[in-house]
């Protein structure tokens, strides 16, 4: 299935739940830690035992404020509410959440491509336990029995509700990736989608281009990776367009993404939705952080990815979209330091973009990195040699000149290179003919041949230039 994007517009809004990296749970002193033997990270409140009472974890509030500020939200007076429904993995048979008054409201997030996505709200709530259904294919309906692990119950969650401002699967992926970078940067989350410490529900609708009103949306659950997020949105949008084009209408539903068959399946329709009977949680008092606390948090907030991208782009002249990966890898400080040591900005960012995917790259000495870039721009190392030397620098921390010397890398005499190129042309007249007729694909044949003959010492660009010159 694919959609005619000239006729249709996809509209996506994402709700992201992130577990907060607190030491203990949201309302009790039980430990907040992933995994563990089932039912070991528990206490009376986690099990909802009679007489237990919630006490709000201040660290969770602090992290929520950090995220709120990072998302340009208004951090406001907020209250907790009870969301009532019966389920075995919900120990009290109600979830303590925020409803009318969330801790963060009305913010925004800037994607690496410069688009700005609205944030409606971010609110604190407690996580549920995990049910395992034994027998009957793992679905609750035909299971022989169910087991519940309450280790996760009560873990603090921040639910970040984005506005329906996204217009493609690609933007949705970029949004989640960016949000993840922000959450990790402020220390709120470890950002692990696969372990479920970040969970994404996406609301998808479609409308004909030019329509002002939004179409009926479906909520997609069980999206566990950036890849499935993109696939799920594309599948769901196509399904909705097909429905409309065949004269049917989209019904408001909650749908389940199945990774195996690559489809979404109905979980429940709007009519079957629960009545959660929200009311103010009487066991807790309102949270009113006040300007002093908020400003204290703001003061220690690290520089965020968007600001770092702008800084690196402005200081290097490299376009925004190219510096995104460098910032995501956390190499922007290294680049800026190397540039300050005299390295060429463009070459520095290019190396960070293409040749520094290793996690150890962040430990590079900026002065040595700068020296390497200078060897290359000074013509003493070819691009290929520089890449090889850089890889070894990351591995050993050695100085670029020493590594180059040990590898026998030195600049080739231009006469030597000409001789090799001419020899290659003479030995392969047919290929040369194709090159002269403009077959671009054959260029690699000659460049590769020269590299082989010189043991990688030749500068690829110089070879290409020579070939052009010989062609006349």
């Amino acid at each position, binding site marked *: 299935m694919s959609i005619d994007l000239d006729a249709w517009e996809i509209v996506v809004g994402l709700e992201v739940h992130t577990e907060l990296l607190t030491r203990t749970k949201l309302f009790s002193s039980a430990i907040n830690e992933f995994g563990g033997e089932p039912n070991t990270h528990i206490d009376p409140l986690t099990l909802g035992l*009679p007489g237990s009472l919630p006490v709000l974890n201040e660290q969770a509030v602090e992290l929520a404020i950090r995220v709120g500020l990072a998302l340009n939200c208004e951090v406001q007076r907020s209250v907790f509410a009870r969301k009532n429904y019966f389920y075995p993995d919900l120990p*009290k048979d109600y979830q303590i959440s925020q409803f009318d008054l969330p801790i963060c409201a009305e913010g925004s997030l800037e994607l690496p491509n410069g688009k700005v996505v609205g944030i409606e709200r971010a609110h604190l709530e407690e996580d549920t336990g995990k049910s395992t259904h034994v027998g009957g294919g793992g679905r*609750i309906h035909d299971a022989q029995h169910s087991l519940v692990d309450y280790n996760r119950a009560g873990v603090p969650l921040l639910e970040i509700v984005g506005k329906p401002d996204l217009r493609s699967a690609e933007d949705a992926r970029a949004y989640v990736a960016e949000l993840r970078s922000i959450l990790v940067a402020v220390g709120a989350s470890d950002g692990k989608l696969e372990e479920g410490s970040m969970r994404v529900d996406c609301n998808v609708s479609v409308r004909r281009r030019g329509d002002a009103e939004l179409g009926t949306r479906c909520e997609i659950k069980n999206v566990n990776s950036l890849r499935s997020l993109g696939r799920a949105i594309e599948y769901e949008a196509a399904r909705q367009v097909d429905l409309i084009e065949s004269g049917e209408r989209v019904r408001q539903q909650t749908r389940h993404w199945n990774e195996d068959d690559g489809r979404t399946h109905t979980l429940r329709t709007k009519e079957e939705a629960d009545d959660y009977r929200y009311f103010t949680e009487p066991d807790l008092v309102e949270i009113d952080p006040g300007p002093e606390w908020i400003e204290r948090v703001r003061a220690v907030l690290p520089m965020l990815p968007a600001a770092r991208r702008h800084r690196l782009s402005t200081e290097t002249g490299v376009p925004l979209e190219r510096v995104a990966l460098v910032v995501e890898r956390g190499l922007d400080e290294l680049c800026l330091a190397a540039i300050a040591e005299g390295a060429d900005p463009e070459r520095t960012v290019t190396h960070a973009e293409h040749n520094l995917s290793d996690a150890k790259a962040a430990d590079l000495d900026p002065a040595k990195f700068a020296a390497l870039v200078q060897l290359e721009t000074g013509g003493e190392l070819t691009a290929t040699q520089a890449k090889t030397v850089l890889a070894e620098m990351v591995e050993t921390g050695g100085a670029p000149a020493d590594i180059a010397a040990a590898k026998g890398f030195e600049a080739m005499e231009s006469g030597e290179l000409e001789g090799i190129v001419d020899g290659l042309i003479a030995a392969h007249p047919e290929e040369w003919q194709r090159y002269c007729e403009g077959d671009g694909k054959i260029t690699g044949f000659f460049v590769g041949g020269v590299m082989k003959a010189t043991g990688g010492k030749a500068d690829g660009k110089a070879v290409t230039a020579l070939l052009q010159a010989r062609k006349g």
Partner: protein
Amino acid sequence: MSFADALSIAASVRAGDRTATEVLEEHLGRIAERETEIHAFNLVTEQDARATAAAVDAAVAAGNDPGPLAGVPVAIKDNLCTRGVPTTCSSKILEGWRPPYDATVVQRLAAAGAVAVGKTNLDEFAMGSSTENSAFGPTRNPHDTSRVPGGSSGGSAAAVAAGFAPISLGSDTGGSIRQPAALCGVVGVKPTYGLVSRLGLVAFGSSLDQVGPFAHTVADAALVCEVVGGHDAGDSTSIPGDFPAVTEHLSDGVSGLRVGIVTEMMGEGIAPDVAARVRAAAAALAAAGATVEEVSVPAVTFGLSAYYLVAPAEASSNLSRYDGVRFGNRIEAATTGEMMTATRTAGFGDEVKRRIMLGTFVLSAGYFDAFYGTAQKVRTLMRQDFDAAYEQFDVLISPTSPTTAFAIGDKTADPMTMYLNDICTIPTNLAGHAAMSVPFGTGDDGLPVGVQVLAPALGEIPMFRAAAVLEAAALAEGGAK
């Protein structure tokens, strides 16, 4: 009936004049004599009590002070968690459940040297005014065993009245301490919301529930308040600081105190003999130097309606956790949903089911604003009207209960007549204020009448001052008879 008070017991135990063990055995003896008839307890913890008393005696022998309640037997309402000791809320759904922790108030009593003797009967989950809603059978009034002791803390009130323990703990959501105190002729206190920790109190209506004492004397009640009250970081609604220093002010008298008689609590529905006792109490306060006038607090007439929206709404949510999954009774069934339904159907009594259904309805989409929302507005109005009254008066007085103890079975057929029992006590819970019931003579039937002293939030000191004067006046009156 006259029994030793807690203060004199503690004084003699601390001085080494009596042992805690002797005191305990005396009380266990009275329990053995009358408990079958009264049924104040769901469980008497004789063995644990003997061990505790022995530890108190050992401390005294070693020259250590066991605390202000040294060797004082205490009965605990069975909706307060006691570590390793069954806590049932008088419900079949919790039968056999042993909490892994003590309620904060239970811990504090123990730390003060008190000796817990058992868990007292109550209306199931504290829902009722007669203790007839217990799954384990009703408690009887020690003054007349054909009558109810009141409720929901009927077992705790009866335990003190029968001399099973000089003090006990109850909980008060709409009058559940004060009304049984009145009907059993003992002192009962509902402190300001937030002054006594709710941690370990099994929740009924969380925004209304408050723990408080029963005692023979105002002074004992004041001491227990100071022992169990004060800030607890484990209860987010707990007020910072200590319980007001009520014991220091018990003999301050009421000279110059401004006392209001609540007009709306003296008219229709109040038995004439009970109203007469309240007038007599007003006269006693005036004679002791207080200025006494009538005052109107109009919003209290909406109290009952608002209460029966707020309390069931919170209860419907608080009682959801009794689903058979993690603790208590479970009735097995084919699916999880059917198991939950079967467990709750078998485990809850009629009154609990009635309130869960009412509360669920009240919170439902489409009805929320009309019911729960309106009830919350009434609470605000209630506070405003009380605030206005407390600008002119330090404390207010009223009957605690409209009548003296009624006969067992009298009001079980019609829930509404039962609910009307709490008409004078409910407004205090809705406002989050303090109030207590003090015995003040008897009605035409010779059964105890309680006078309620109401005070604003944190107004415990003037409240206890007035209560102490009423206690002395009642004693003088009784002596004169």
